[in-house]
């Protein structure tokens, strides 16, 4: 009987260690949940900073408005400088053309288009759209991960620890009945 008792004590000891280990896992999970919550909060807060569609559109429209206005001015100045051959008007036409080429060059070859403000505005619109989508994906993923960690991992692990405790209770009951 003493040998049996020693064996049962060893089983209880293993079970206790197993339960403690589960609790370490639960404690690590709680820390991970805290980190995930902080991550989620930080992300939610900064998502509010993403430039609005309205701002992006205003910027694009400003670029287009300026381009069209410069184009009209350039047409007039080109004709005036050709008529008068005046140096000031030639310079005025050159400057207007320069302003256009910075915003939206007429010969929009790939290289030229990549150098323009119009191309920058389009790139910004696309990238900001991607960023907005990515924040949404990240927030969804973080929320889903939080739920898995909280309910499926933490909750289930607690049940396992409780099963271990029940096993110890049963062994102790046996010891009381048969051994002590």
């Amino acid at each position: 009987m003493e040998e049996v008792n020693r064996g049962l004590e060893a089983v209880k000891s293993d079970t206790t260690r197993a339960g403690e280990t589960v609790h370490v896992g639960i404690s690590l999970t709680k820390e991970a949940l805290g980190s995930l919550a902080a991550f989620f909060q930080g992300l939610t807060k900064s998502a509010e900073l993403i430039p609005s569609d309205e701002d992006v559109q205003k910027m694009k429209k400003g670029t287009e408005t300026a381009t069209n206005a410069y184009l009209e001015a350039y047409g007039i100045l080109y004709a005036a400088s050709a008529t008068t051959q005046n140096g000031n008007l030639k310079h005025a036409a050159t400057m207007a053309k320069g302003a256009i080429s910075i915003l939206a060059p007429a010969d929009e070859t790939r290289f030229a288009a990549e150098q323009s403000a119009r191309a920058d505005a389009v790139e910004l619109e696309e990238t900001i759209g991607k960023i907005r989508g990515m924040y949404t994906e990240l927030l969804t993923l973080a929320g889903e991960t939080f739920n898995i960690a909280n309910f499926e991992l933490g909750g289930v692990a607690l049940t396992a620890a409780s099963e271990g405790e029940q096993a110890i209770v049963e062994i102790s009951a046996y010891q009381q009945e048969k051994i002590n």
Partner: protein
Amino acid sequence: MSMEALNEDLLTAKAQLERGSTAANAAHEIGEAMAHTASQLEIDAMRAGGYIPYSNPNSLIPDSQVSPSGIISTLRTAAELFGNARSGLVTTMGESDNEHIQNAGLHLYQAADILQQDGSGAIPAAERVKANIDAINEKIMALHGLIVGVNFVATRLQGRLKTSASEAKLSMESITSFQRQAGLPE
């Protein structure tokens, strides 16, 4: 073309240049604010990334102390210990028909099973958490790259808008010089 007619055209050109430079300057201000916002977003993304429970020496994001790999290995150890305890119980008691021992064996079996069970166990859940966190880490790094890109392009765009407005001003000044030389209304 008479000088009066020419000047009418030049006044129209100046008005258009003024309109264009005003629009470019307004857009420039938005671009400047956008670049500033992108800098803040970049800082925030790095800060948020620091909270991801992740451990990877190659990550751009600072490592968190709590890694899902650590949780998985802890729970595996626990499952193994529960399994050992059950084996110990069987060895000690043989095929006991005692109700307490049978119950204890069942609880130990369930404890190990609850941790490892396919789909609904704690360890598979921890593995899913790990997979999600890997995906979050990758996304936050990609997001960081996009934000840096927005900062760069917004800065370049606002520079271009400002330069175009300056060129329009120079064009207007040259028109004014012509008007003054010719004694025309400005």
